[in-house]
């Protein structure tokens, strides 16, 4: 166990834990756009920056991204000191210049009192903040269907060669975890389309409810050793089936 002081309060944390994980557990509201517990910390958005110091630092302090900073014994952390707030304001000011149309960015900036950017607005921009949560989750899941391509101003998230991604299974994890909801997808009858790839959905053989994509079910069945038949019935019909089986046993018991 490691002891640290956060905003004047003594908090215990596990050795090796990142500061942001501790802040979240303590319900301290620190903005963090590129963080997801399913993947390794990345340090792209810089919003989770906090001020740290120690007793023996002679009054000096440092600014670190809490998502990438492992806890240390005796650390004194301020999450909303005037300097930190000022820093976050500047970052949000820049974000707002680049993504003026993103409702999520505008809300966050407004929370910090930034309503209009003081920089030149990017006119042909989009709402992707390049946090790479999508690509990192896709990699962690083992698909590697999308990645960031290009550098600097032209950097973007895309499938290889901007073609329909052969490795995408349509799990939707990228889109559902995008902090600015930039990744588009559409449901149309029994089909899901994402990254310009059209997926057939599994349909419950009993009630007709649509579940995951067939490609995702096939992947899980093949690589995770789960019988494909499990995916042919929806959760509700599975529960009914279990009730019928247990009911049958109970009725035999009663008769006996």
């Amino acid at each position, binding site marked *: 166990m490691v002891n640290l002081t956060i905003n004047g309060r003594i908090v215990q944390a596990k050795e090796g834990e990142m500061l942001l994980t501790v802040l979240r557990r303590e319900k301290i509201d620190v903005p963090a756009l590129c963080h997801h*517990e399913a993947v390794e910390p990345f340090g792209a958005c810089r919003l989770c920056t906090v001020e740290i110091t120690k007793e023996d630092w002679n009054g000096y302090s440092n600014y670190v991204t809490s998502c990438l900073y492992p806890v240390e014994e005796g650390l004194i952390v301020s999450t909303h000191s005037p300097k930190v707030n000022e820093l976050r304001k500047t970052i949000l000011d820049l974000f707002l210049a680049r993504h003026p149309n993103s409702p999520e960015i505008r809300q966050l900036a407004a929370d910090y009192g930034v309503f209009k950017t003081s920089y030149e607005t990017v006119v042909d921009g989009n709402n992707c903040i390049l946090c790479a949560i999508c690509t990192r989750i896709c990699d962690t899941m083992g698909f590697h269907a999308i990645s960031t391509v290009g550098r600097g101003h032209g950097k973007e998230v895309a499938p290889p060669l901007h073609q329909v991604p052969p490795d995408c299974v349509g799990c939707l994890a990228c889109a559902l975890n995008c902090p600015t909801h930039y990744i588009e997808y559409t449901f149309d009858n029994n089909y899901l389309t994402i990254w310009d790839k059209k997926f057939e959905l599994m349909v419950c053989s009993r009630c007709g409810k649509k579940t995951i994509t067939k490609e995702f079910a096939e992947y899980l069945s093949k690589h995770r050793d789960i019988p494909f038949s499990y995916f042919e019935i929806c959760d509700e019909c*599975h529960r*009914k089936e*279990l009730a019928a089986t247990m*009911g049958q046993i109970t009725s035999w018991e009663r008769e006996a």
Partner: protein
Amino acid sequence: MNYRFIVRPNLCTGCRTCELACSFTHSIDNIRGITRIYPLDGGFKDLWVPVTCLQCEDPACIKSCLVDALRLNPETGAIELNQDICVHCMACVAACPFGCSIFDKQHDIIVKCDLCGGDPACAHFCPTKALEWKPIEVKKKKVAI
């Protein structure tokens, strides 16, 4: 593990108290969660089966989760879903052969029975003891074979 969750369909009256207890216990910000336990008739007359997670030994949910959000809590024997890690891919919901990984529309999250962290509310409230949370007696053998 010192306790076992016992389900006796024979004693269930279908009163659905367990559902309520579960739902209230899993409230988030005072909004009730979806129930993780379902008393169903299974197509039989005067017969109810409280269907809930069986905490399988070789669980399809854990196998299906590609980000390791589902893990066994060795202290309670429950397979727990870590909401911070879950990426909402619905793999576990689709994979569970008993339909006990469930999508909670209200909170937009996936949920499953966590045995309330080792003190299941449903068992507390079941009026007929169709659900029980009981210590397991470990009988010591007196004679070595």
